[in-house]
């Protein structure tokens, strides 16, 4: 069930009506939990048991072992962490590791057969296992107390707006919200509607419309001209941003309409003047998760420059592998890790240049964009050889192909960049939210009609559902 599908609107209308009709908090939470499981079952009912298992494991360990400082708290804690990682590893990385092992054996002159087991990837598994782990870790660190209510933990892990593609919500942010009944009068309806509409437009009207052109280029890069290949790379950057941030916007708005607050997940990342700032603005809930639960525990920047660089690289490579088990994601993570290290070095060695380079932010933004889009090539390409082919064209501006793209990519990209900048610079969302009610209604009506007209027929799943 996608946020842009009519059946989601019917589903949400029913859930929201029933939710606000109930007066007490507990029945509301039961309703939300049931609705969340229905939402997930619409993808694949078989994997509901996996969510329930994850919930039970983390609830029991936090509640009865870690929280009350049980004598086996440490053991139980690591059992929970490894339990979560085992679920993730089995479903997400099993195929990758067995294939790699077979390839390695073949390189060494041994023949191993591929396992016949074919494991299906449950949608959203990376998101809810990370949420579950952060809960146990936070309890262990005493940032939060162990939750006594199983319903609360279950809803924290399975709450449908963020269940399948985030944002990765922290228990410390969400569990307190579950303890009190949300008040309908406090719901900021206008901002929620604007945010949902914005997300809908990004996902359905922009991302889904340019996806076929991107697919064409990435499926056969050698056939296209340099301009077409570079356009394809840039369009993919727009596609994935609109797809994922659009999903996040709709998720946040949906939660808002039920009275809950989620953290911001994107903040105009393509306007970042450095790669470090980019990672403070892109998929914020994941990057902050990696920072708090991986980078800092590894030592962060407290152990000197060399270990800081090692920690950065480790974090980014593992962050790449979080997206999926492939060398492409590994390289993507490596490229970002390398860029972060270079950025840190630059900042420390050339600090004296700060404020002396004219238009430094603009050059920084352009350099960041160049590198981020280069890394997207590995993120999107079907195979490593195709990634190299596209990267070669991107870097050398040479392509053997002769075919042009059947889309006016450059005017679109310029318009997108302009709107992106204007929207961020002048805080367009807040202005719309503050509009008089009648003008707001007329604007929403017109925008909705236009959005539907720009909606391509046939739905594409969100890119991040595969993660």
């Amino acid at each position, binding site marked *: 069930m996608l946020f842009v599908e009519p059946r989601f609107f019917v589903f949400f209308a029913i859930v929201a009506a029933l939710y606000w009709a109930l007066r007490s908090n507990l029945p509301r939470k039961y309703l939300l939990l049931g609705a969340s499981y229905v939402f997930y079952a619409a993808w694949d009912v078989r994997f509901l048991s996996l969510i329930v298992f994850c919930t039970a494991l983390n609830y029991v360990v936090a509640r009865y072992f870690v929280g009350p400082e049980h004598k086996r708290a440490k053991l139980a804690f690591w059992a929970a962490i490894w339990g979560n990682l085992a679920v993730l590893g089995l479903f997400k990385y099993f195929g990758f590791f067995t294939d790699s092992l077979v390839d390695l054996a073949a390189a060494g002159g041994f023949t191993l057969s591929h396992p016949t087991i074919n494991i299906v990837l449950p949608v959203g598994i990376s998101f809810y296992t990370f949420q579950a782990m952060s809960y146990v870790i936070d309890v262990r660190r005493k940032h939060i107390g162990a939750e006594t209510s199983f319903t609360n933990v279950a809803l924290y892990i399975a709450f449908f707006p963020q269940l399948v593609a985030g944002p990765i919500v922290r228990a410390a942010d969400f569990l307190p919200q579950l303890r009190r009944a949300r008040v309908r009068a406090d719901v900021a309806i206008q901002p929620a509607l604007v945010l949902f509409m914005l997300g809908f437009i990004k996902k359905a009207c922009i991302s889904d419309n340019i996806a076929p052109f991107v697919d064409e280029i990435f499926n056969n890069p050698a056939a296209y001209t340099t301009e077409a290949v570079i356009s394809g790379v840039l369009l993919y950057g727009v596609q994935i941003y609109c797809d994922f941030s659009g999903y996040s916007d709709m998720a946040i708005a949906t939660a808002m309409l039920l009275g809950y607050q989620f953290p911001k997940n994107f903040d105009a990342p393509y306007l970042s003047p450095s790669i470090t700032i980019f990672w403070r603005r892109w998929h914020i809930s994941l990057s902050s998760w990696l920072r708090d639960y991986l980078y800092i525990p590894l030592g962060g920047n407290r152990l000197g420059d060399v270990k800081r660089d090692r920690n950065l690289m480790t974090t980014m490579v593992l962050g790449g592998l979080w997206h999926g088990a492939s060398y492409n994601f590994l390289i993507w993570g490596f490229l970002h890790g390398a860029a972060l290290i270079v950025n840190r070095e630059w900042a420390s060695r050339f600090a004296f240049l700060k404020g002396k380079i004219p238009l430094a932010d603009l050059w920084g933004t352009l350099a960041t964009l160049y590198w981020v889009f280069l890394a997207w090539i590995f993120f999107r390409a079907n195979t490593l050889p195709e990634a190299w082919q596209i990267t070669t064209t991107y870097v050398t501006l040479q392509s053997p192909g002769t075919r042009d793209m059947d889309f006016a990519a450059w005017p679109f990209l310029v318009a997108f960049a302009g709107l992106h900048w204007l929207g961020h610079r002048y805080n367009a969302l807040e202005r719309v939210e503050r509009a008089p009610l*009648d003008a707001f209604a*007329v604007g929403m*009506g017109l925008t909705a009609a236009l959005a539907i*007209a720009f909606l391509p027929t046939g739905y594409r799943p969100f890119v991040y559902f595969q993660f």
Partner: protein
Amino acid sequence: MSDEAVQTDAKVSPWISRQGLRATILGLVVFVAAALALSAWYRSAAPRPPIAVLDQKLEDFAALEVPYDIVFLGSSQTFRHIDPAVIDAGLRQCGLALNSYNFGIPALRQPELDYVAQQILKSRKGPQLLVLQNPIRAETVFDNMMSPRGRYFRGGAYVDEALEDVQCYTGRRRGQARSLLNNLRVIVAETFALGRMAETFVNRPDPQLATYDQGFRENAGFWPVDADKSDHVVARLTNTPMTGDIIADARARRGFAPAADTVACRVRQLTETLSAFRYAGTDVAYYVSPAPLDVVHDTAITRAMAARNRDVPILDFNTPEERPQYFDPQLWFDNAHLTGEGARRLSADVAVRLCDVMGK
């Protein structure tokens, strides 16, 4: 149970304020009005999408200098079964020097039939005799309806006709319900201009035109199905083959009989189409193709047609008792279309029947 069970939404407020209600209604009105305007704009700016075979036949028909005397109008069972050259030769044998044309269009349904009928009538090249075949039942498959052709005939002025076609669905009730649901989905999509701006400015739609061998353009609209080597036509050999069971059921008259109300509805539609031609001074006849899958079904409609239109000649070839020669698997390309040889034999028989009808 924890104490939170008794916590309630303390600030009880009305479901929606008066201002909020007004704004909601205003927003909905603006949304609907804007969507309708967009849809109307799109349909006027981008009229009927291309339709394979129909476009070529309309073009050929418009280029005529001398109108055809007889036009056969129907679905692929007209397109693939009626050979005008054989018909004309047969008519000559009974002293009628007439020329005929095959206006069969694959997958023709009632709203499209009405469209084609209007084009023929508007051309003022109407024939002396129009031979009409019952078109295919209303579509049930959503994806087919969402093709450019499907959407066109479910929007604007065609909404009524699309819904009437569902009402006159002479299949099973379950199929009718599915057809209604999917038609409504597509009608809503078209009314609200779903994706039309995207098609105009970004992704031009694939017209999803099935390609056909163009031999029909040199043969007065006819081209036998086994001479057409288009992929989707050849695929029918394996996807929808004729079987001994189908023939056996047809011979034994086993099959689905449509409900009386849908038959009456369908007959009313057909009668209206025939009346339009009669009003223009054209004689009409009703033709029923051999169709082993639909013997019982067709018989119910044919009887009702005969009862309602006593002065309209009926050319019924879907009768295993009277015309057993067509219930031979060897004559069938797939389960719905005769081979070229089958079409030749049928056309010769149709010509004989036409000689009777035309008083020779």
